[in-house]
């Protein structure tokens, strides 16, 4: 409540305990290569969207893993599913499929419907 001209700020820490990581679990089950990312950023570097907007596929993966679903939902639509990222991944992660599965998971979950 704004009583004195301000409200009490909310923390922006990733609160690991209270975050919902079901989206990540959904992807782990269907695309095990999701576990293999070493955060090299190769996908982001080649990403067409990433080169013209603030979108980062690498960061999106991290946010999915941490259960930062609101932020994921805000950004995932920017991916055009061109699949260029999968061509450069040194760990053979099917990066495109992770986005597909994340969207699927959101659609299946009423709470996070896109």
């Amino acid at each position, binding site marked *: 409540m704004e009583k004195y001209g301000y409200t009490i700020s909310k923390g922006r820490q*990733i609160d690991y305990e209270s975050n919902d990581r079901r989206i990540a679990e959904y992807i782990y089950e269907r695309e095990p290569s999701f576990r293999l990312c070493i955060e090299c950023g190769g996908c982001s570097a080649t990403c067409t969207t990433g080169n013209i907007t603030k979108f980062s596929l690498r960061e999106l993966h*991290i946010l999915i893993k*941490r259960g930062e679903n609101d932020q994921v939902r805000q950004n995932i639509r920017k991916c055009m599913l061109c699949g260029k990222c999968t061509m450069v991944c040194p760990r053979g992660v099917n990066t495109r499929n992770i986005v597909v599965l994340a969207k699927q998971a959101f659609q299946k979950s009423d709470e996070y419907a896109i």
Partner: protein
Amino acid sequence: MSKHVVVIGGGVAGLEAAGRLSKAGFEVSLLEKDNKTGGHLNDWYKLFPDRRNSDEVKAYLYGITLHDGIKLLTNTTIEKISGNKTHFSIITNKGKELVADAIIVATGFDLFKSARKEEYGYGIYDNVITSVELEEMFRNGKIALSNGNVPKTIGIVHCVGSRDEKVGNLYCSKLCCVTAVKQAIEIRENLPESKVFCFYMDMRMGGAYYEELYREAQEKWGVNFIRGKVSEAGEAIDNKLVIKVEDTLAGRPLKMELDMLVLMAGMEMSDGGKKIAGMGGLNTGENRFFAAADHHYGSNRSNIKGVFYAGTCTAPMNITETISHARAAVSEVMDYLRDGR
């Protein structure tokens, strides 16, 4: 009469050097400060990257050293070293004098004392332990919290006492990353229900089959890797550890509750080595380890003719490297005693 070589330190490097020297026909005295040899190998149950039992490596080392050709002096430290051009005189804590034609210093490393990273609360908070203590748990087959319960969430902190100006260690200890990965896998093997988080700055998997182990930890064991140096740990009322770290790849601070925190303590120049450096006039580097005569082609040679180095008294090394380095030291001794003086 055969030449007499004194090897200081009965860990991996000292044992390998003594065994090889003896095989080459030298008279060897092996000095060990503890009541038994084996050094840090005694603290480790299974070794990276192949996770073989450390006893197998010890068995090999004891096989080449436990015989009459090597005079083993345990519980022995050095009080004084002096030398002229051809011989060294070593006075032990028992008042005994050893006269040596050459010396191999194999004083190894000391594990970083984790209590010095005060903010992690080692020695204060009940469930903050070191990698060595976890290894002991593996050996005993029981991973447990201080109250006997089984931990469900375990955090592993890389770079404790390494790459850290605050504790005076600028260098990387090189083996903690792979140790963390190995131990993370072993936790998951022992406790399939557990969740394991490695907090790292860089994954330095520079040895043979290390990177593969890292991949296995991710792929097969579901170990979580979070890039960020743990800033502090605190203890909540239910005894859980609250840690703060930045998830640097998400660019956000992260707060997490853990049942157990394992500190990957780094390697430091040993206290014994420091003492010998002082009394023997041996040069040490900025990292406080012994400074070899040449970093590239003289890593076994010291600033004093006839005194050689073997193993981790010069820098962090794994067992493979330590054994190779000890063999190289023996080859340097052989050259020296044949024609090098």
